[in-house]
């Protein structure tokens, strides 16, 4: 046995998985997309962008730049012409405010810098109250992604802890936890969510809690079955034989061996919770109306579509779809990278 003298740690599992992930072009592209979303969400959370999403910056239903010719009563395509409203002597005679016009015009000129000119064209258009759809989409993305991430952390944490106990100890502990699981899954999901939000009241925190408290069941079953599989493995028995405690075996020995599944579960839950938030908000049980999320935007869009204002739906649907699809592909690549068996295809 020769000493090669290199006392450096060898590439750990995670480093190898990272290398496999980087070797996958799909993962690289989707990772970049997700990174952009996260950066934008962070910038929006710190107030650097999209701070004024709730301000009236354009005319009602301002046209998006890519469709400037859509009819809009207050926009460039308006049929009401400004020069038609020039006041002449005839109107002055019947208009009681006519004598004040001079004064008003003067005030307007002196305060010109203070009055915001309502835009007729906005990058992605405007909504009914003249809010910028781009800013709205960004702010909504920030909240939706935050809800998805936070809720999936809660759900996966609950699922992993309960699943670990149930799978590792089996017996009575398993029976009790299985009972809780069965109760949770026997109630229709939406009903459960409604019950939780009725009790907890409205708010972003509630949405996160509701999704987290109801979404742990899948993770629980997965982790439980993994623990059942691992607890009889030789390496766990060897740990038992050297005198390791139960908690040590559960969380120091077995947990790292199922951690890749937890990571995959986490990313899958993010996607499903973002979609669930949309449904909840659409139904009116989600994010309160003074905030904005992709779900609220879709909910708002209902009345707009009737009068042909499609750009708000287009923006938020595109933003959400791109995020969800990129995240799904990324999750798939992640699973391939984390599962060493699939690495040699």
């Amino acid at each position, binding site marked *: 046995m020769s000493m090669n003298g290199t006392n450096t740690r060898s590439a*750990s599992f995670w480093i190898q998985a990272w290398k496999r992930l980087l070797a996958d072009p799909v993962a690289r592209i989707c990772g970049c997309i997700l990174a952009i979303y996260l950066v934008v969400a962070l910038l929006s959370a710190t107030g650097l962008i999209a701070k004024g999403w709730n301000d009236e910056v354009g005319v009602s239903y301002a046209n998006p730049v890519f469709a400037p010719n859509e009819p809009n009563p207050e926009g460039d395509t308006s049929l009401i012409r400004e020069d038609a409203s020039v006041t002449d002597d005839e109107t002055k005679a019947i208009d009681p405010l006519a004598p004040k016009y001079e004064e008003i015009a003067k005030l307007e000129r002196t305060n010109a810098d203070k009055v915001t000119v309502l835009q007729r064209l906005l990058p992605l258009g405007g909504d009914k109250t003249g809010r910028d759809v781009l800013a709205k989409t960004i702010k909504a993305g920030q909240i939706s992604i935050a809800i998805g991430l936070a809720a999936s952390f809660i759900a996966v944490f609950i699922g992993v802890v309960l699943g670990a106990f149930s799978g590792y100890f089996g017996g009575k502990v398993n029976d009790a936890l299985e009972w809780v699981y069965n109760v949770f899954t026997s109630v229709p999901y939406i009903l459960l969510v409604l019950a939780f939000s009725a009790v907890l009241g409205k708010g972003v925190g509630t949405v996160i809690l509701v999704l987290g408290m109801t979404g742990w069941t899948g993770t629980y079953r997965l982790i439980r079955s993994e623990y059942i599989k691992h607890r009889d493995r*030789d390496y766990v028995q060897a740990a038992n034989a050297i005198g390791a405690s139960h908690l040590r075996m559960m969380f120091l020995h077995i947990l*790292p061996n199922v951690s890749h599944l937890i990571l995959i579960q986490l990313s899958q839950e993010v996607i499903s919770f973002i979609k669930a938030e949309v449904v909840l908000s659409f139904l009116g049980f989600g994010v309160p109306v003074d905030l904005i999320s992709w779900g609220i935007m879709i909910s708002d869009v209902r009345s707009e579509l009737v009068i042909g204002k499609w750009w708000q739906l287009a923006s938020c649907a595109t933003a959400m779809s791109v995020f969800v699809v990129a995240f799904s592909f990324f999750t798939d690549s992640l699973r391939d990278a984390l599962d060493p068996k699939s690495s040699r295809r």
Partner: protein
Amino acid sequence: MHSIQSRAADKGWGLKMSDDVLLDVKNLQVTFRLGKQERFTALKGVSYSVPRNSVVALVGESGSGKSVSAMAIMGLLPRANTEISNDSQLIFNGVDLLKESEGELRDRCGKEISMIFQEPMSSLNPVYKVGEQIVEAICLHKPMSKLAARKRAIELLDEVGIPQPELKIDSYPHELSGGQQQRVMIAMAICCEPKLLIADEPTTALDVTIQKQIVELLMKLRQTHGMSILFITHDLELVREIADQVVVMHNGVIKELGEASAVFDHPKDPYTKALLACRPTLDSRPIRLPVVDDFLQGREGELPKGERARGVLPTDPIVLEVKGLRKSFTAKRGFFQKEEIVAVKDVSFKLARGKTVGIVGESGSGKTTLGKTLIRLHSCQGGEVLFDGKNLMALSQKEFQPYKRRLQIIFQNPYASLNPRFTIGDILLEPMRVHSILDSDKDRTEHAMALLKRVGLAESAFFKYPHEFSGGQRQRISIARCLTMKPEVMICDESVSALDVSVQAQVLNLLQELQDEYGMSYLFISHDLSVVKYISDEVLVMNRGEMVEFANSDELYHSPKHPYTQKLLAAIPGRGNH
């Protein structure tokens, strides 16, 4: 039988070859693509031939390429990442198999060439009855009605020695024993009267007594059907009995090739010599087992001479005493009934300090359960285990904790017993941390490094992960992990069974050296009777959970008293040839 051969000659696509050669492997070179850049050459230009009506044995350790060459003949290598060199030829009955289309090869497989695998349980489809599977194999190659095929299947089952074939044809694979499953596999393989039967480690997963029956069956079938058998195995002793020709392979190269008698009696290649020498035999017990390196480096003369004396005297101090140990599992039957399945019943023995008790038995005899029960990895349902004056079975979990470091276990599978996410350093430090051995991690690291050196590994191993080591090296790491606690009793549960013969010898030598050095007592559990004979002072034979015989090893092997022990010893391959 010779119609294809003659037709081949008529058409002129038969190569000039002597009529008595069935399969000619010429310069077979197989490379696997592992990654974008990585290549692994499994076979580096291998040539051998299989004459008609003969048994050719391909012998080698894992990674020698013996199975790859069989898979190449059957066209079973994954096409996506396998490269077979253009110079390679596989001439079967005058036709080059490598030039055939997939369809032609598929036609030939099962009909003219068939194969049986190592694991009968996973080779049979568990959701179909065995009859259906045999009928399918027949109907694929012969125009036959289902009914006629079924009749033929019953005949075949009868021929391979399955009792009551009319009944057994309708059983599912799990209802048959391992030996019977392998017989079904053989029935499927011979259903179309193949000319060549490839048997890839057909008995490795079976017990010795069953192994003997299966080998006898294969030899009988070879006689009656006039077929050739390509027998792939790692077990040289098994080959000695059955093969006409032997091909010894190592790392994708043929080391030696020739008539079986010549290879066994006058091996020319040092590797063959080493393989023959490093396997413990029943009639000698050298101080140290020779290993492959001794032969490759021409040091076989420097081995310590003389025999090691074994056996336990009544005056030897006892470290562990087992009295009437009983272990049972409960299985649910129906809604309310429970059935008790006894895995170990009434086992009593004494383990002397610094000595080894070997526990032998076939699979399902309860030997592993016994070992795990002793260190409370299983609960026990009766009996006592006296250690240091205390009954270990009666202690609470907390009271038992300090005893854990004094009783240790090494598992069978070195690939499963090390946590894949821990570095070797973590693995070695953990027991010392748990039991607060030594004061600081710095001292512990030093101690771990010293132990790594002691078991024959480089200190750099400390920072590596288990997957970077071979099976033998991992078993050394397992041993080092146990040594960190300086145990008094070490249970070796099939600890060398998963290793190649040459590595097995090294690990056995290490275990022996450590026993001499630290005075540890071993409980050596194994199904391998030769290994147990070599390492044990006393031997305990188990059958179906019961202790059959317990005696000093020389006594037990020379004059076994119990009929079961006699049967077991008679089944050892190579017994009586020395």
